[in-house]
């Protein structure tokens, strides 16, 4: 399973995500985020596409800012990210801003969901992103 819930996170929800590529890593982050926030859709919906752009000096910061942006869109536009449609990540390790993400995501409105629990923030506690032999592994604890 690409993402699993971490058992010893008590008051909040932690996920461990494994993916064979950076794009899949971001895709799994979106899936885990959606699975916490949404129990189910109330009816078939036409998703709303939105672009998310994030710049960062490290991969960890890129992921932190990406999740923070998903939370921001949820709270200000009333849209929950459902799936990652396209994701372009530019990496230039010599530049000051080393990572640029330009992603297209599908979102669903609150009016179309039976909600799970809210995600209010992403924590730095246990937060990590590592390159592994098989791709990438990330640990994210969502504040509930």
């Amino acid at each position, binding site marked *: 399973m690409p993402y699993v*819930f971490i*058992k*010893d*996170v*008590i*008051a*909040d*929800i932690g996920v461990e995500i494994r993916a064979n590529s950076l794009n899949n890593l971001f895709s799994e982050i979106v899936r885990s985020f959606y699975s916490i*926030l949404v*129990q189910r859709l109330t009816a078939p919906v036409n998703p709303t596409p939105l672009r998310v752009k994030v710049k960062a000096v490290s991969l960890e*910061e890129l992921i*932190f800012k990406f999740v*923070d942006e998903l*939370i*921001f869109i*949820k*709270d*200000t536009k*009333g849209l929950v990210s459902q799936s990652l449609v396209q994701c372009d990540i530019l990496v230039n390790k010599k530049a000051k801003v080393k990572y640029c993400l330009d992603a297209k995501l599908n979102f669903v409105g*609150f009016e179309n*969901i*039976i*909600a*799970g*629990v*809210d995600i*209010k*923030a*992403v*924590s*730095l*506690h246990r*937060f990590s992103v590592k390159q592994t032999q098989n791709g990438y592994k990330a640990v994210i*604890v969502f*504040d*509930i």
Partner: protein
Amino acid sequence: MEVFGFKLIKQGQAEYVLTTKTRKIYFFATEKLLSQMDQAVFHQAINLAESQGLVGPVCIMPDAHSGYGAPIGSVFAADESGFVFPGAIGFDINCGMRLLVTNLTAKELEPYIEKLVAKLYEMVPAGVGKKGFLSINKNQLRSLTQSGVPFLVKELGLGWAKDIEAIEERGGVQPADFEFVSDRAVARGLAQLATLGSGNHYLEIQKVEKLFDKQTAGKYSIFTKDQVVVMLHCGSRGFGHQICSDYLIAFEKQARQQKIKLTDRQLAGLPIMSQLGQAYLSAMGCAANYAFVNRQAITYQIRRCFEIVLGGKAQDYNLSLVYDVSHNIGKFEQHNLLDSGVEQRVFVQRKGATRSFPNQPVIIGGSMETGSYLLLGTSDSLKKSFGSTAHGAGRRLSRTQAKKQIDGRKLWQDLKQKGIYIKSASFSGLAEEAGLAYKDVSEVVSAVSAANLSRPIAYFKPIGNIKG
């Protein structure tokens, strides 16, 4: 008992001490609660004690469980040359409790309870993505978050003048400067004012189950068993969360640049008097005031609900504020440092801990099944815990475990049969907040009472609950 190579020594009733290389850690807990604490609590407490810029001991409350960097249920202090840790104050800045008292008995309210719970659920939005009744612009948000409840009551007329007197810091923490709040926080704050939120936040109609101190209870117009009260638990919503997130990143970066040792990335601290430290304090003050205002706006809605469902004016049912107290906050206060005996101005950080100054009401919320307590602060708490006590029951099961073990729909039905009406945005959210997921709140109150951090005045049982 040995914990991570340190000796944990019992030194009084519900009091244990662990001495690290740099400072003491006091655990206020019964043996039972101590044994229920996850190992991470001890690890995080030791990390906290070894952090830079603290004065005096670290205090761990009986309801402590592991948090981000610092245990939820911890109190510590720094002097003006010391450090502030945004992660240790937490995402939900000034999450807190509020208690209103009515002159109704549960029997008198019984014919209306289902309607009242439904109306409260309608008028106090709860759960993911709900918007509140207050439509404000950025300038009004600026005034509200810089001035707190007095602005809401005096300028917008949402409350009674006497409410202000029954709120910690009179509902307005300083410093609070909106210039240090990001546009992202503003956008989230505008959308969520006067909403309950989700997770463990709730609005509960309760009845007095037991009075421990009738005389003190009477001072707050709580006179008899079965009398109805209203309890509220919520915080600064996305506004506070965004402020914490913004400053966490900035603090971590700067701490690394300055080669400040980080025991946990969420526990990045900087000198209080640094530029970033001061900016955080001003932004945190705004978030704290947002939370006070949020609870005040919800109180306005609660009073309107009573008027709509029962008729007449809110005052006919009393609905006075007993108290509003924070359990996630950092503030400058005067304290006698426990080890030195010298009174000085220190920055006290309470994460999952309630201020418990002498004769000040303290509200400890339990789960929706077990009930909650009103207590009174003591002078001993000033000597032992920077004037602090516990804040709740403390989680026992993780959210994932709770959902596996508890069927939210069945729980809802079972509670209805017991006379507890619940309106919840989600059954899975309900399962996560079941009584089984929490420690015994009465054991927590026994511990703070035995350690004399606060003493119980009244015990309440729920009869209606609104949950996000």
